[in-house]
């Protein structure tokens, strides 16, 4: 057996024989003087949140001349590839902004530092246990969940009022059954067809898993020995069946939206073609920016399943996280920086900048985030019920998602296959994929 490291090193050395030089290990982040310098890869991309992140970094640098942090801009589109390459090459950033789903493989691959002993007690107390579960896998804690966003219903208030629909609030959300009836009522065919709801499903798997939680399902289950098992029982399939009914039988949701992303359904929403959109909390920013003058919209809580745990309010979510790379040479300093970023006022700042919800218990109650304007308070109320997405910590999830679940769900939602054959595909083909990751 050859160790992978030596294999790579050997090839590299042969190829570079002409200019062979001693291997410089490490993250390359230390300046010569010995004072630590940390590279912070941030994925903030909206104007306000980039500003908030940069402001916090300069604040830290001013207060900690002994540990300087450099802000490095990354992008959600390609962060996985960028990180994998630099991990393999041994030149990764020190502090990494990423999301829960990505931590599974990077954590179990040994690229990320286990934060269990590194984080100050204050950090651990600030964030509730349900959030920590989102970044803890079998043997370690690989990130600090700091931002999260629930799925909400964004509605065209004018259309709902006209139809005499009574708007729900966070205290009493609709059940899925009520939602389905209301959608039917709001829909009509004809040349200028209107639909009660549009389901943007450009990535159908994560939506399906996370919302299956509201009906007491999971689809992906962990067995006692840490393996993954796929099931599609009544509780698991209640949500996908609802979408399928709305698209196929009720005609209260358009099939054309199934291939679109959240941003792409907005023009149709503004034009009154769709009365409601199930979208992530942060889409409010885009809506506030793009909605035509006088367009009256409102943020509603997502419907709940009856008889599910937590009254059906719990949705699965994959949070945004801050991690430390294993190759970082100043892990304590990196953990201290993460602690700084996740202090309550800073969490509030970051959440505001991204129009998302913080994970911290106090931050969620902060007056700046619980105003009634623009749906903030409803969002925070829903966010306090979030739990870890069923996909988190499941090795093999990306492969199952790409090869099995995405095509199967696309075919199911568009009406090409039956529930029975969806189950066969997800479960039989799925368990085969997950078996590959047993070790």
């Amino acid at each position, binding site marked *: *057996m*050859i*160790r*992978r*490291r030596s*294999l*790579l090193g050997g*090839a*590299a050395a*042969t*190829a*570079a024989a*002409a200019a062979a030089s001693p291997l410089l290990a490490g993250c390359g982040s230390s300046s010569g003087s010995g004072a630590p310098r940390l590279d912070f890869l941030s994925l903030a991309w909206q104007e306000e949140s980039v500003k908030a992140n940069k402001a916090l970094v300069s604040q830290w640098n001013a207060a900690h001349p002994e540990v300087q942090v450099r802000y490095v801009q990354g992008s959600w*589109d390609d962060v*996985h*590839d960028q990180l*994998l390459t630099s*991990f*393999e090459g041994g030149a990764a950033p020190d502090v990494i902004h990423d999301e829960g789903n990505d931590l599974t*493989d990077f954590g*179990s*691959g*040994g*690229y990320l530092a286990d934060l269990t002993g590194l984080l100050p007690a204050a950090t651990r107390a600030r964030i509730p246990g349900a959030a920590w579960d989102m970044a803890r896998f079998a043997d370690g804690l690989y990130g600090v969940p700091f931002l999260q966003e629930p799925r909400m219903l964004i509605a065209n208030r004018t259309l709902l009022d006209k139809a005499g629909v009574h708007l729900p609030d966070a205290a009493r959300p609709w059940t899925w059954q009520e939602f389905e009836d209301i959608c039917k009522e709001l829909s009509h065919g004809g040349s200028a067809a209107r639909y009660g709801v549009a389901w943007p499903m*450009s*990535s159908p798997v994560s939506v399906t898993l996370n919302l299956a939680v509201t009906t007491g399902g999971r689809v992906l289950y962990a067995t006692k020995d840490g393996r993954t098992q796929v099931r599609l029982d009544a509780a698991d399939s209640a949500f996908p069946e609802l979408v399928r009914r709305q698209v196929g039988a009720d005609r209260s949701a358009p*099939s*054309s*939206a*199934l*291939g*679109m992303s959240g941003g*792409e*359904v907005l*023009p*149709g929403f503004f*034009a009154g*073609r769709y009365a409601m959109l199930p979208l992530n909390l942060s889409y409010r920013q885009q809506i506030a920016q793009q909605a035509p003058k006088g367009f009256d919209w409102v943020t509603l809580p997502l419907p709940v399943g009856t008889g599910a745990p937590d009254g059906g309010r719990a949705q699965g979510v994959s949070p945004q996280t801050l991690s430390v790379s*294993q190759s970082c040479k100043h892990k304590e300093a990196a953990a201290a920086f993460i602690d700084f970023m996740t202090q309550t006022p800073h969490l509030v700042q970051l959440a505001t900048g991204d129009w998302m919800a913080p994970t911290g218990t106090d931050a969620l109650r902060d007056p700046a985030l619980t105003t009634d304007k623009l749906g903030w308070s409803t969002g925070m109320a829903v966010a306090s019920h979030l739990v870890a997405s069923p996909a988190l910590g499941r090795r*093999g999830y*990306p*492969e199952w998602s*790409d*090869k099995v679940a*995405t*095509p199967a769900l*696309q*075919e199911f939602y*568009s009406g*090409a296959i039956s529930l029975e054959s969806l189950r066969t595909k997800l479960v039989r083909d799925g368990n085969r994929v997950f078996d590959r990751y047993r070790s």
Partner: protein
Amino acid sequence: MLGLDRDAWFLLLPALIPVLVLSVGPLVYGMALAFTDAQSGVTRSTSFTGLDNFADLRLDSLFWDSFRIGLVWAVCVTALQLLLSLGLALLLNQNLRFRWLARTLALVPWAMPEVVVGIMWRLVYNPDAGILNNTLRHLHLTSGHTDWLSSLTLALPAVIVVGVWAGMPQTTVVLLAGLQNVPVELHEAAGIDGAGLWRRFTHVTWPAIRPVVLSITALNFIWNFNSFGLVFVLTSGGPGGKTRLPMLFAYEEAFRYGQYGYAAAMGLVMIAVIAVLLTVFLRNRLKEADQ
């Protein structure tokens, strides 16, 4: 040495050294992975597994489905690219007015960065607010709600159009440069002899640009077969896997699932198949190189 004299080595050397260090080395290493069970992760060890990956691959029906899609995509895009670009290059070779402007505008797809191209075309194809549906609606050709990228039948043709669009400039430029090899005298002579346009094309133009056409078509075919970035932005391989190109498959195998060994095996199989196809296509040029 190897049939080359000293001068020839001097001519080759500046290109040879960087290529050996930065291309051949990594390439050989990457191919060697196909015979191992290499995975991502510092904690996992790698061992030599012989042909196991290939045995698994033989039974991987998803991969072969995607391979078929890849062939359809590559053949369609390459053929359309060649036909359309040849026409455009011949037009741009004429002494038309505003030729400089036309030539510059024809290169627009080249000048636009890929990430932008993908996003722009998604806007074009948007069922609700896209200009394509909008235009069709105004012309009363369709109801105007056609679902281009998520329909099981339309998605592949729709991305092929984008593929052709994106690849036309470089083919056009190459052909345009190739047309400079067509001796004007021959053309004139043929014109005087009263040869028609088609005859002049087949007897004078075509023989002169044939080597260039062969070269660019071979490369285009390889590139198209290997490309997936644009399609990935447009459809992420959907709907129902209908636009899942084989290179996307290999990419995901390596970078998303961390199965380097298996992905390398896919790479080798694709090389083998393309190599066979190209050998048939390029047999004359290769024979010439052998002489």
